[in-house]
């Protein structure tokens, strides 16, 4: 029993880690955001979210976040603690209150 909030804002939590937070204002890791679904059917998919993040949150070196229309190599994307590859990748559909994590893989030791 779930009502899709058509044309009303979707509340998402976005987290950036592994150094990706350095691309954002004040290097803030956690961002609570309201997204207006803008593709007509009230949906937000990952592809759209990436574009939104690039326009609204990334302050510098966008090439360190995106490559083509996806994230750059070395970045893991997690939707509600699950690898986005298991949820549909760029086409994964987001739901109200989802938590999306973008994390750059570390190599140090």
């Amino acid at each position, binding site marked *: 029993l779930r009502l899709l909030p058509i044309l009303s804002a979707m509340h998402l939590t976005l987290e950036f*880690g*592994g*150094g990706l937070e*350095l*691309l954002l204002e004040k290097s803030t*890791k956690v961002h609570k955001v309201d997204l207006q679904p803008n593709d007509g059917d009230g949906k937000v998919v990952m592809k759209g979210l990436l574009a939104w993040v690039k326009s609204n949150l990334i302050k510098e*070196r966008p*090439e*360190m976040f995106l490559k083509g229309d996806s994230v*750059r*190599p*070395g*970045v*893991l994307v*997690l939707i509600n*603690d*699950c*690898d986005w*590859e*298991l949820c549909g990748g760029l086409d994964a559909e987001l739901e109200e209150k989802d938590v999306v*994590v973008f*994390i*750059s*893989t*570390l*190599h*140090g*030791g």
Partner: protein
Amino acid sequence: MIYRYSRHLLLPDFGVEGQRKLSQSSILVVGAGGLGSPVALYLAACGVGCLGIVDGDDVELNNLHRQIIHKEAYVGKSKVKSAADACREINSSINVMEYHHTLKPSNALEIVRKYDIVVDATDNLPTRYMISDCCVLLNKPLISGAALGLEGQLTVYHHNGSPCYRCLFPNPPPVAACQRCSDSGVLGVVPGVIGCLQALEAIKVATDVGEPLSGRMLLFDALSARIRIVKIRGSSTVCTVCGENSAFTQDDFQKFDYENFTQSPMSDKSAPSLDI
């Protein structure tokens, strides 16, 4: 022996059988630095049968803030010798093997072949690809940890259907994303936490006790004291190394230029200064 490990033998989920499996297992730790310090010490203490340590570097004073296996007296001496001596001091009953080389495609197969389990405790991207490829070719589980700044990551590759490093990262990141501890710093105890967890996962895999972090990744953020354990993709059927139709052979491995592939050096010494 029984008295030394009595606190393990008392554990219902571990017990005599767990301790016996540990004593018959051989584990290779690649890197005797921030991660390798707790890994080697805890694996030695707990009684693995054979502990191998590989590292080509010497101990430097600025390692000591986090590499607790090395004493000041060993500054300027081989890390492997220093680490092996420390392991023998806490447990003379295990077999400790020293490999004072940088692990390379030319020597990796020969060394890794002798062990049941490999622990990646290294500090650079080309070596991480190389160790993963080598573990796939020789079918060894790989306990992989990383730490930088105030964050750490941990997973078990190529075990129980879990991915290899190339399944997750088929293409290397841009050079500017390859920061190291020498570029960006690391809070000393962060690799300590990750290294202890690596030792734990190695023990679990060696003894077949509990659920190892295969197909899951632990993400540690020291500043906020938050830990996420996330589900990651399984082994990819189209992976160029572990996939069904992989044509990657031991010959290919020995000829593969990991530094060129990642545009990043295997040795920390020649690392350029990078900022993300």
